Each structure stands twice: as structure tokens, then as C-alpha cells.
């Protein structure tokens, strides 16, 4: 591996001082003269016709500057891929929490008071809340006009199952015919909220013909374009301004109230700020989807898997508009990194009268990995095999296809699993009611469009400009490290400039573990461009051809391998008084050719009298490529695992009769500092990654297998198999009781 100075070493984050002194600006901190507050009224019915909305009293309240309803902006559809969502409900509401009216007033209290004065008359319609109900023959069709929405593909017959994919490989029936045993299970997973601590926030100010937006969006260009589409104005009349984002985990790609905020600003003629409170976040955010997953696998007595049938159903809620692709992927993870020749993977996306789902850390991943990796354990147990040995037998190796038919370079599943097992003491003796379980996941980093500019000034200024808004994962610091490395300077000298939209044509933003992959490529490219710019300046100063100059990794410019004066590029700029600028764009398509594995091991104790599960230890082994910033990388591992623990054991955005009932952090519990287990991390570095610094993604991988590892450990401890998340003490208790 190449030796680096800054890349690969713990580097203090570029946003450190801002964030630890309270000076970092987030959307809610943005102050403007004359700014007023916007608030939204949410539906209290899951499915109803709106007979009448009376805003008379609200409008008359002193201090109220604007009141809008769906009638005011009829026809303006919103959505990321499938535009199925009115900005404010028109004629009908489809979930409890749907936005139906909005108010802007001088202060937040007045806005809230005005909302209380709006009268809505509903006429209830039949509603469906879960997947089976919604697909039933008599189910009310939630979107009869589905085929007319921009971004949708018309259906053959009206259905709440608005999107279905089937992926066949080999001969499924023949595979099942070959099997000695066919094992079938159904797993369900709950809704999970991203629970970033910064709620969705938007500030809109319209000045002249230009719309300025401050919003916590991790995809600012897509946000700008989405708003432009909905309003019907050119994208270049909108600027989304750079800000820090207070946590994302997939949820900050959908700026929930942003279009409403625009209309309130337009109507009131004032800048408007909308800060969701956490009640609104839980009621009408864009949570991780609840799913139902049926797995059926054919296996021979010798442990060979012959056929595997995945049926993946997604409870999408009332709209598809919050999903970047209109659907949730992840179904392939329910096939897995195993050698199975005959597979069928079916995925059905289902509308229900519940809060629409959005994206969260590997959309579909933790759900399907929970199902598959629980199922694999169940198959192993059914055959009387140790789940570790059974996996070792069936994991696909280098050059082989996985069960979904994908082939990756240098597959390291077995090495990762083995390293995890050793670190976890998997084979060690254990006491009564103690269990160990494992789960394996893999994820190949996604692609996207990225860009960066480096500006070097004679006074020693080094600035990296980026269209990415820092949402916490440290992408800015990655860029900075690479530029410092390639220009051979102390990273503390590099300044970072986060751009407003419009600085470049487009940018993909953050998502799909693409951050490090795209940023490292772009960072490398822009550094090379900057080096070339410096060489041009050197050549010009010496009145020679640029090709005669080279830029060493020590930051020294050489002419035909001789050091020339001024020796360093910094001195060159001082001497010439010039500014060097490098700009690079990169378009990286598709999934990375290398995938990164995570093998996780949970050790639990279970109290059979209460069902209480205690996590005694957690081990996470990762096949990583090169790690650019060890502190940041470990932070992703730790954070991913703890979110996974929440998903596995405590978090559930409860929906009862279509109504979210966990409306505060008092009821929706996420792990606290008191809930974290001792953690062991094992990294298996290699040069098998992608891009100039051979990287792999880590943000998603650390999160997906956690729930399955814990479920398998619980089953190992007491023989009780919980197939429905979260694994609460009550579920374990009931499962134990039902087994007698």
C-alpha cells in the first residue's frame, strides 16, 4: 500500500471548532430581518374527503400574515421521483399527519394559535393500514389516479401495490425439487425514525425574482430542482444556501415543509422560517419502512442450498414521493452473499393510509438482512448444523455469483466472518441463558456526480470548495485530507468552503455510502488539476514548457527532476503573485466493483422469567480497503451499530389505527449512553477498494446486520426465535411461553 502523510491518519475535523463552540450555523439558526414563523396543520384522519376547510378565524387573528390550503396551490405535485403528493392536501387526506393547511405569523405562538382556529370538516373513507389489508381484493384504492402522476408507470389494474419487480435466476422450481428440505418463514420489521436530533427546518426568502432557501438537505441540487418543478419556475431562480446539517441517516433528502414554506413566503411577502417540532417529525416525517418478508429456501441434507425465494413487501405509507427512486430497494439483500443457483426475488411496494416512508441508512437493508440472516440460522439449526459452519459452507467466493446474481472483485466474506468469530470468542464455552449470534452483510459503495475546486493564493490561503453540505459524516474532512496530502501541507492550513447551489451545474449530494467514494475520487482529481495549474505557473515563470516540470509528493516542483527555485509551490505563488485554481468533476456510475463485508457477533444474556435481553458484548468485523480517517471511520462503525441496536431492541414508530402514537422521545426510545455494550471492532484492510485511495463504504455496513446478530444470539440463548422486530422483552417472553 502507498504510504501517506495525512490520508489514513487521524485528522481533526475541519468543522471541529465551529461545532464545539456553538458557532456552526444550522438552518434554524439563520436569522433574517423581518422573518416570521410558519406552521402546518396536519390531518387527524387516515383517509377522508375534505368537505370544507374554514380559515376565517385564523386569517382574522392579529399577527397572522398568510394562511394557505390545498385549494390555493391545486395541481402542484411534489415528490422526488414519483410526484404523487400535493404540497397541501387537495380534496382528500390519505394519512393522519398529512399536511392540509399552513399559517405564517409574526411569532410561533400566534402561528400555533391560528392553526387551532382552522376548522376542517371530514367525511371518512375506508382506510387500510397494513400490507395484507392494502393488497386485499376489497381494499380501497388509495391512489386511483396513480398512472397520471409524473414519474409513475401506469398499472394494468388499479392496485395499492403500485410497483412490483421480479428477478429470476436459474430454475426455481427445479431447485426446490432437488432439495431435501424446504424451509419457510415470515419476518416483519417495524417503522424506524432516523431520529437525527435536528428536526427538518426551512427558511425561505423571496427577493426580487429570486428564491433563497436555507434548508437541511443532504441533496441540495435535487432539492432545488424538486422545488422548481413543483412551483413551475426555472431552477436557476432558486438558490439553496450552504449550511451544516444536524444529522441525516437518509432522512434529510426530503425537505418536508420546504414547498409549503415557499408558498407562505410568497403569500406573506416576508421571509418565513419553519422548524418542525419533534411531534411533527414523528407524526409526519419520512421514516424507515415497515416490511413483511417471506423467505423460502430449499436445502440438501449436506447443507447445499438449491433454491431461494424472496417475497419482499414494503409498507410505503400514503405516498411514494419521499423516496428518491419512488421505491425501496434492498430486496437483493434477502438473497444474500450465498451460493444459491436458483433464486427469485420479488419486491412489492404497497400504498397504505399511514405516514409515508422515506430513506434511512441502507433503505431496505436492515429489514432484509434481519430476515435473511435469521432465516439462515434457522436453516442451519434445522439441519443440526452450527450457523457459523453452515455459512462458511455456503458463502460465495471470489469469482462466484451471489444469490442475487451479482459478482464482485476479491470477495472476502469468509475471511471477515472468521476474523469476527475469533475476536468475539464465538467458540468459547458459555453460561446458562447466554447466547451468541452472528450476521453478515455487505454493501458496495454507490456512485454519483461530484465536484470540487481548490484555490491557492499567494498569501498562503488554501481553500477547497465543495457542493456537499456536511451532514455529519466528515466528507468535508476527507476532501481536506486528500488535498493536504496531495499538496503536501498540514491539513490545518486547508480551509473549506461549502458552496450554495448554482456554484456548479449539479451534484448528487450524500447517500448510498457514496460520500467517501465520490469525495476521494473528486479530491484526488482536483488535487491533480491544482498541481497542473501550479506547474503551468512554474513553467510560465521560467518561460519553459509545462511538460518539463513535475510535482513531487513532497510539494516540491522539479524541472527535469532537478529542484528549481522557488522550491515549494507556496514560494512560487509568493514569487509570482499568482493564484492557482484547480477544478474537477467526476461522474461515477453505478455500484462499486468491490463490496465491503461486515460480520457482526452479538453476545446476550436472556432472563427467561422476564424476556429481558442484555447485550453483553458486540463485535464488528469489517473488510475495509483503506481507511482514510481512522477516528471518523470508527465513528461510523460505532454509530451504525448503536442505531442497529435501537432498531433491534427498542425503536418502533408505532402506528395504531393509522395514527402514530409514539410522538416524543419519551415514548420513542433510542439508545442512550447507558445502553451501549462493550464493543470490539476488527478491521481487515486491503487494497481491494475502489478509486485512487482504494476505499469502501462504511456508513451502511456497520448498521445492517445488527438486528439479525442479536436475534440469532437470543435464539441461541434460549431457543426462542423472534421473527418480528423489535425484539422486546415482551416478545421474547411471549415466544418462550408459546413454546411451553
Amino acid at each position: 500500500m502507498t504510504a501517506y502523510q495525512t490520508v489514513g491518519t487521524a485528522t481533526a475535523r475541519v468543522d471541529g471548532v465551529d461545532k464545539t463552540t456553538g458557532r456552526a450555523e444550522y438552518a434554524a439558526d439563520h436569522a433574517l430581518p423581518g422573518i416570521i414563523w410558519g406552521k402546518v396543520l396536519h390531518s387527524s384522519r387516515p383517509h377522508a374527503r375534505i368537505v370544507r376547510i374554514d380559515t376565517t378565524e385564523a386569517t382574522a387573528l392579529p399577527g397572522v400574515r398568510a394562511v394557505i390550503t390545498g385549494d390555493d396551490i391545486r395541481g402542484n405535485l411534489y415528490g422526488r421521483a414519483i410526484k404523487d403528493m400535493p404540497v397541501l392536501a387537495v380534496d382528500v387526506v390519505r394519512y393522519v399527519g398529512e399536511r392540509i393547511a399552513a399559517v405564517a405569523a409574526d411569532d410561533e405562538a400566534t402561528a400555533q394559535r391560528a392553526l387551532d382556529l382552522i376548522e376542517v370538516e371530514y367525511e371518512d373513507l375506508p382506510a387500510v393500514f397494513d400490507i395484507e389489508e392494502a393488497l386485499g381484493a376489497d381494499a380501497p384504492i388509495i391512489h386511483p389516479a396513480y398512472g397520471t402522476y409524473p414519474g409513475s408507470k401506469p398499472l394494468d389494474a388499479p392496485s395499492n401495490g403500485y410497483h412490483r419487480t421480479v428477478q429470476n435466476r436459474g430454475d426455481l422450481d427445479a431447485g426446490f425439487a432437488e432439495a431435501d428440505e424446504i424451509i419457510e418463514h415470515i419476518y416483519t420489521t417495524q417503522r424506524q425514525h432516523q431520529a437525527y436530533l435536528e428536526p427538518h427546518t426551512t427558511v425561505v426568502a423571496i427577493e426580487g425574482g429570486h428564491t433563497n432557501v436555507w434548508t437541511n438537505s443532504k441533496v441540495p441540487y435535487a432539492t432545488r430542482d424538486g422545488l422548481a418543478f413543483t412551483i413551475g419556475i426555472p431552477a436557476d431562480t432558486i438558490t439553496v444556501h450552504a449550511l451544516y446539517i444536524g444529522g441525516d441517516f437518509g432522512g434529510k433528502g426530503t425537505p418536508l415543509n420546504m414547498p409549503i414554506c415557499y408558498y407562505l413566503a410568497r403569500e406573506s411577502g416576508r421571509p418565513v422560517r419553519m422548524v418542525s417540532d419533534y411531534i411533527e417529525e414523528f407524526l409526519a416525517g419520512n421514516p424507515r419502512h415497515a416490511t413483511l418478508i417471506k423467505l423460502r429456501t430449499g436445502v440438501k441434507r449436506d447443507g447445499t442450498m438449491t433454491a431461494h425465494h424472496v417475497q419482499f413487501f414494503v409498507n410505503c405509507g400514503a405516498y411514494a414521493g419521499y423516496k428518491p427512486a419512488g421505491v425501496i430497494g434492498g430486496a437483493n439483500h434477502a438473497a444474500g452473499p450465498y451460493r444459491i443457483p436458483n433464486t427469485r426475488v420479488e419486491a412489492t411496494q404497497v400504498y397504505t393510509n399511514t405516514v409515508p416512508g422515506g430513506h434511512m441508512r441502507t433503505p431496505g437493508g436492515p429489514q432484509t438482512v434481519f430476515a435473511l440472516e435469521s432465516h439462515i440460522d434457522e436453516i442451519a439449526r434445522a439441519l443440526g448444523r452450527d450457523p457459523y459452519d453452515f455459512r462458511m459452507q455456503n458463502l460465495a467466493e471470489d469469482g462466484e455469483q451471489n444469490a442475487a446474481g451479482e459478482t464482485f472483485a476479491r470477495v472476502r466474506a469468509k475471511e471477515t466472518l472468521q476474523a469476527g468469530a475469533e475476536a468475539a470468542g464465538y467458540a468459547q464455552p458459555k453460561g446458562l441463558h447466554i447466547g451468541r449470534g452472528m450476521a453478515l452483510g455487505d454493501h458496495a459503495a454507490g456512485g454519483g456526480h461530484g465536484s470540487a475546486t481548490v484555490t491557492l493564493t499567494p498569501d498562503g490561503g488554501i481553500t477547497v470548495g465543495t457542493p456537499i453540505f456536511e451532514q455529519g459524516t466528515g466528507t468535508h474532512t476527507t476532501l481536506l485530507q486528500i488535498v493536504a496530502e496531495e499538496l503536501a501541507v498540514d491539513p490545518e492550513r486547508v480551509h473549506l468552503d461549502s458552496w450554495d447551489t448554482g456554484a456548479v451545474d449539479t451534484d448528487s449530494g450524500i447517500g448510498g455510502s457514496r460520500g467517501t467514494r465520490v469525495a476521494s475520487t473528486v479530491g484526488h482529481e482536483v488535487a491533480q488539476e491544482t498541481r497542473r495549474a501550479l506547474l503551468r505557473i512554474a513553467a510560465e515563470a521560467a518561460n519553459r514548457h509545462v511538460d518539463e516540470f513535475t510535482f513531487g509528493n513532497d510539494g516540491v516542483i522539479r524541472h527535469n527532476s532537478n529542484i528549481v527555485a522557488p522550491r515549494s509551490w507556496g514560494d512560487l505563488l509568493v514569487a509570482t503573485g499568482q493564484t492557482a485554481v484547480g477544478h474537477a468533476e467526476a461522474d461515477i456510475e453505478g455500484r462499486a466493483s468491490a463490496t465491503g463485508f461486515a460480520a457482526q457477533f452479538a453476545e446476550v444474556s436472556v432472563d427467561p422469567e422476564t424476556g429481558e435481553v442484555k447485550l453483553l458484548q458486540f463485535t464488528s468485523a469489517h473488510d475495509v480497503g483503506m481507511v482514510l480517517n481512522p477516528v471518523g471511520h470508527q465513528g461510523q462503525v460505532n454509530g451504525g451499530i448503536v442505531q442497529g441496536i435501537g432498531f433491534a431492541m427498542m425503536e418502533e414508530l408505532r402506528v395504531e389505527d393509522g395514527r402514530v402514537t409514539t410522538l416524543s422521545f419519551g415514548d420513542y426510545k433510542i439508545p442512550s449512553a447507558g445502553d451501549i455494550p462493550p464493543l470490539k471492532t476488527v478491521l481487515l484492510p486491503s487494497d481491494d477498494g475502489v478509486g485512487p485511495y482504494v476505499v469502501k463504504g462504511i456508513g451502511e455496513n456497520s448498521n445492517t446486520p445488527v438486528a439479525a446478530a442479536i436475534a440469532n444470539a437470543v435464539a441461541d440463548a434460549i431457543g426462542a426465535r423472534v421473527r418480528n422486530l423489535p425484539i422486546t422483552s415482551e416478545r421474547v417472553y411471549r415466544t418462550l411461553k408459546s413454546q411451553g
Partner: protein
Amino acid sequence: MKFEHTITVDASIEAVRTFFQDVPAVAALVPGIEDTTPVDGGAYEGKLRIRVGPLAFTIAGRATVEQDADGTWRMRGEGKDGRIGAGVSASLEAQLREVTPQTTEVQAVADLQFSGRLGELGQPLIKRKADSMLEEFTENLQEHFRSA
């Protein structure tokens, strides 16, 4: 929020049916209901005061009552507390069944829907309260026939 409750009272089905025609009298047995006054077309106006710990609200509203020949009694109402901005719409259906000539079973199914912040947040508090109100109504109703 749905509630189901079966109440057995010591009275003939006919007596119960007759009593249920007197809406203000029935309403008077519901704890917290005040000022029930008939308006046009089988409709009534009234107030419901509820207090649960620090929460206190007064819902002013209007309800209509119908009674079928078999004694099935249906109420639909809507009201609002202007101060808190809480709205409630309620439906109640009570079916009568003769157990013995001197005992009647009242099977009541109630459905309450709240809007505003009370609908979003107050449900657990209200649910418990509604349960105990229904219980108190049951006792009051039984007591009414016992002393009648």
C-alpha cells in the same frame, strides 16, 4: 378510540327504552356533561367538562340522537374546546337486549375521535379518563334504575 361496554340494569327493556328517549336525563348521568338543551330536529347542545390532572377542557358541541323501533340508540356529536383547539367527534350506539323480564343488557359501542394537539398527544390521558367516565356512567345508570 373505540370503547365497548356491556351494562346490565335492573329494569325491563321497555323501561330502559323509555328512559333512553329522555336525552337530557341520560346525559345527566354522564359525568362532566352539563347544560344539555334540545334544539331543533332531534339535536341537542351541551358542554362536556373533563379534567385529567393538569389538563382541563370544556367541549361545547352539538349532538343528534336517533332511536330505532327495537330500541337501538344512536348518538353522533361534534364539539370543540376553543381554548385548546381540541375538537372531538363522537358516536355512540347502544343496543338493548332483554336478559330477564326485569333485567336488560345495554351493549354500548363508542368511538371517539380527537383533533388538534389533544388528538395527537392527549390520547393516553384521555383514554384512561374515558374509561373511568364510562364506568361511572354505568354505575349511575344502574343506580338510576335501582332507585327508580
